[in-house]
């Protein structure tokens, strides 16, 4: 088993943390190997950023994805830049408010992660809501493992907010159908 995941958005949105949490859930709180790599521009905010995770039950040689099994986009620019790597069998999840132009002639999951975060009072947890949705949609890691990785990776004083965002995202993910 080997899964290659790309999460992309704009710099400052927390896509790297999102990938980091999924990698940590895989290899610290589950029994997989994982690697996470990233690329981003020199800007502190803005610009397309991407975080890539490979999860495998075997040793991971080449540490960058050679294909994409799961593609997550949280910004239009990033979606436009990286959509070329989407294959027919790639699972695609987007944030429809942040990726309004997503009609690419195929079905995809739409998760309003930013809206979930806003309802919780802080847009900053959009990425964690998306991590929850990924966990609910993509049947790979247990919700328990990912939740532990969230708690382990965010500042203590924001644990509650992040856990709520994760759980709301998880629920949205479980109920989502590709459209």
């Amino acid at each position, binding site marked *: 088993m080997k899964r290659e995941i790309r999460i992309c958005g704009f710099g400052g949105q927390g896509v790297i943390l999102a990938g980091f949490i999924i990698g940590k859930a895989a290899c*610290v709180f589950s029994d997989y190997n994982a690697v996470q790599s990233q690329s981003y521009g020199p800007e502190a905010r803005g610009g397309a950023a991407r975080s890539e995770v490979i999860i495998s039950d075997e040793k991971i040689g*080449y540490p960058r994805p050679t294909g994409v099994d799961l593609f997550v986009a949280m910004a239009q620019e990033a979606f436009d830049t990286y959509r070329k790597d989407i294959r027919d069998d790639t699972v695609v999840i987007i944030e429809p408010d942040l990726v309004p132009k997503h009609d690419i002639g195929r079905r995809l999951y739409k998760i309003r992660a930013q809206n979930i975060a806003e309802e919780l009072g802080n847009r900053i947890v959009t990425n964690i809501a998306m991590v929850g949705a990924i966990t609910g949609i993509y049947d790979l890691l247990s919700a328990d493992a990912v939740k532990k990785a969230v708690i382990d990776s965010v500042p203590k004083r924001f644990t509650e907010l992040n856990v709520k965002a994760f759980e709301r995202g998880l629920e949205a993910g479980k109920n989502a159908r590709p459209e």
Partner: protein
Amino acid sequence: MKYERDPERIRRVLGDKVQFIQGDLALTYGGILAGCSFFGGYPITPASEVAEGMARLLPRVKGTFIQMEDEIGSIAAVIGAAWSGAKAMTATSGPGFSLMMENYGYAIMTETPCVIANVQRTGPSTGQPTLGAQGDMMQVRWGSHGDMEALALAPSTVQECIDMTIEAFNLSEKYRHPACVMADGEIGHLREKVVIPDEEEMTLVERVPATIEKEKFIPFTNSQTRDSKVPDFPTFGTGYRTYVTGLTHNKKGFPATDKQKDHEELITRIVTKISDDRERLTSIEEIEMDDAEIAFVTYGASARPAESAVAMARKNGIRAGMLRLKLVWPFPRRAVNELSKKVNTIIVPEMNLGQIVHPIREYSDAGCDVIRASKVGGEMHLPHELYRYLEEKK
């Protein structure tokens, strides 16, 4: 005040045994586990996180972190700290490593144990700061002037960033010679699972202190207490009289710049104290080598796509294997020579235009074809790019 390495405190500060961390932080962890108590550094991409980790963690284990004015000052501070008895370390990348070359030679000449982590990028000059490369594999060997040996390890995984930094300290202490961990931007910024070794899982080597009667102590000669070309170490402040200079010095440490014999004796000793142990130090990993007819010789990050290419080849019936150099310098002449007698072709993937391919050619049997498989520009080789070499040359 002398630093007391406190294993329990170190483990408490480093945290959980299993972690998902970047290679750069793993270099930090390796240093702290080895007992590093002084870090002098200057930030540079992609090595900055090593210094950041040290700045955050080293004071918590009662060590000292200092950000110097530049890389020249950084290694100078490290050398001074080492003479005061500390296990000392710095971290940098290509441009900073270039700046360190003068004092790197000074550390070699004065037989100062210290560790340099180099998270390599490319050049010349500023090059591609945020991207990985294997730009300094020859600089670490030949970058300073004069005759010298080098101690250089090349990690291929984040775990090895921990393990090899510990090993670098051990080699450095044993030989009283700077040891380099030649990581690269790919591994330095990659996050991967690490398991922090328990105390009983580590071997730590400490420099041998001078213990002979003070009047009889000779600082720059074979050990006076063991059968070794490495002199016992007269830590500053312990009362052993020592004159430390980068000039050619006699056994007592005093300048002997116009003495041919003194120079020859000194340089021969500081080179052969390492090269005599070449075969004993050889550290390699062999993958699918039993019946291999064609092989990669790799090190560092490029071992990873090469290993994937070997797996692809095996699936397609190509008898390919890989020899990975964990310790690149001193160069494992015998292992490479034996390999070259066994396979028809050796392919050397490097993220440069050809550096370690040269000693591989030098020590390979004439009947073996040694081919360079370079990739530059800040991207690793793709597995299928390396697989193509195997298919063409099988």
